């Protein structure tokens, strides 16, 4: 049987750290199900509307993009009123 477990490293940036103080800047999420960016955001308990974009391998990706084993993703918040 194929092991479907998935380990993803997530970097939380900008005002997400202020809004979600329970999250650390770098979180590791493990899932035994396939996981999209949206799914990951849900797992972390973040409101999707506070993620301006997600960056995977230095590229902005849509929120329905499927994540893969050992990938590292940055969740970028809207600029918080400079």
């Amino acid at each position: 049987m194929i092991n479907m477990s998935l380990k993803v490293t997530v970097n939380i940036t900008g005002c997400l750290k202020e809004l979600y103080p329970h999250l650390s800047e770098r979180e590791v999420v493990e899932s035994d199900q396939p996981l999209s960016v949206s799914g990951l955001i849900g797992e972390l308990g973040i409101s999707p509307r506070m993620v301006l974009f997600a960056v995977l391998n230095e590229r902005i990706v849509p929120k329905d993009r499927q994540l893969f084993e050992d990938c590292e993703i940055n969740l970028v918040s809207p600029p918080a009123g400079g």
Partner: protein
Amino acid sequence: MLYGYAGKILTINLNTGKASADHIPEDLARDYLGGRGFVARLLYDRLDPGTDPLGPENIIVVATGPLSGHLLPGSGKTHFGALSPATGGYGDSNLGGHFGPTLKYAGYDCMIIEGKADQLSTIIIDNETVKIVPDQGLKGKGAIEAEQELKERLGEDYQLLTIGPAGENKVAFACISHDFGRQAGRTGVAAVLGSKNIKAVAVRGTKKIPVFDAKRAQEKGEEMYKVCFGKPGFKTWTPFGTASITDWANEVGAFPTRNFQTSYAEFHEKINGQAIVDRLLVTDKGCFGCPTPCGKYGHTTTALGSAYVEGPEYESIATLGGSCCLEEIEEVAYANYVCDQLGIDTISAGVVVSFAMECFEKGVISAEEVGREISFGSLEDTVYLLEKIAAREGIGDVLAEGVKQAAAIFGDGSESYAIHVKGLEWSGYECRNAPGMMLSYMTADVGAHHNRSWALGYDVSQSDADVSELIEAGTGGKLEISTPDGKVDHVISMQHSRPLFDALGICRLQSMEIGFETFHYEEVFELITGRRLSWQEMLAISERIWQLTRQFNVKHIEGFGRDWDYPPRRFMEEPVPSGPNEGRYISKEILDKMLDEYYEKRGWDKNGIPKPQTLARFGLD
């Protein structure tokens, strides 16, 4: 000895033409840190009630912070303050660039300008030497043009502050310009400079600032840069700067459109951060010591002309683009350039011009009064009004006082859509479904400015729905009601944390936008000043400053109190007509409940006046 500080306050008396330098009182540095703290305390101590903001007895305080000018990220900030001609109360604004560090290298943490010169002049500071030089052909010159001319005359070593024609003509929202596109834009500090007959201030400095542990402070500063470069947000923040929020502000229904009639602009993708990068950008531009240059220096071409311009920043996009409905980024950038040359704050300018457009549309003012027909979306009309305002010609003379005063003159119900708090025009976030952000604007000490507290994130994150998906799904994007629950605490907390950076003399964006941790500032502060202060202790100082600026308004604004904290009637009574927040508004009843809670938590009475015991608690009695 005060480590980290240059150690002196420079006072320039324009009545006598004399300058003097005094030591910074140690208790001032201890209790107020610097920057905004120095500005607030010195203004409070030196200005009497009844002072005319545009009279010679008003003063301008320019202050750096203990971290300004040192080797660490974002250490180029300078704070400006005066009794505001826009509000009649506490006024301040800050800018980046290189002026503050250079002032410090000249030996001064702080400069006070008092009195009035007998003719238009430039102040030239070269370390200990201070001269007041009468106008040499700068009268009426654009702020950027004047800076260019003075750079050529004095040399590249000089850092300059300039004002444009709007400052010379004492427009209530005139701004101080520096470094070809950085502005201390808000609260009309440049009008005060203009009232003192000062067109420019030039400074050259070659001294060292004493540092408690110079070797370790340098090592820590270098480490801080490395940490910044390694932050995941680093690569995503710099390319677009603040303009990257444009689409998001629309999707969450917070984008001021048509003088804040609605909160969603169909054309937002034509004026967003990507449009700047694709159609304007020449290079990124940063302030002194900045690892994350958010300035976008670009070139724009329109039917009215072409220009190089720094920006537009998000706030200019929101007010000139959204509120005036300029639908192309080139037009927004051109209007931004016109404001920069005239020396007008782009935020207030966009709100004032769009207010005039709505007044015209509703028949409150006529073509005869305006001098022509005007309409939303017209760059030509926007520039026409900006030039009239700066010159104080015709209708421009009324608009030059800001929307509060203009509405009082126009009447006919226009005060309900004069978008301001305390007389300061509202910046770039529409709040009819954002109670936390609304309270942030209502209670900001300077008036409706976003940088004291940006609680919009708390308002928006209350829901799980993904806004872009709602809109794509054709739901009309109607968002759920955002409630006031818990917002007061967030607003208060942000009103301490954000302005703290202004007291330290550093940029907040490395912390706010790319997640730079505050313990780095604690460590470097100790190495530079020799004083150990936790972030929490610094926040307590920031809270003291907040109480002081409230008390400043009590002292200077006759009858000041709760009535000064309400938003315009539009936001309390008119439902948003379209977009994701269609149907939303926040009633006065809800806002009153929030104000009650806010005042109580602040230690203020029901009218929003600090109680004697509160003042005593902060050493302000």
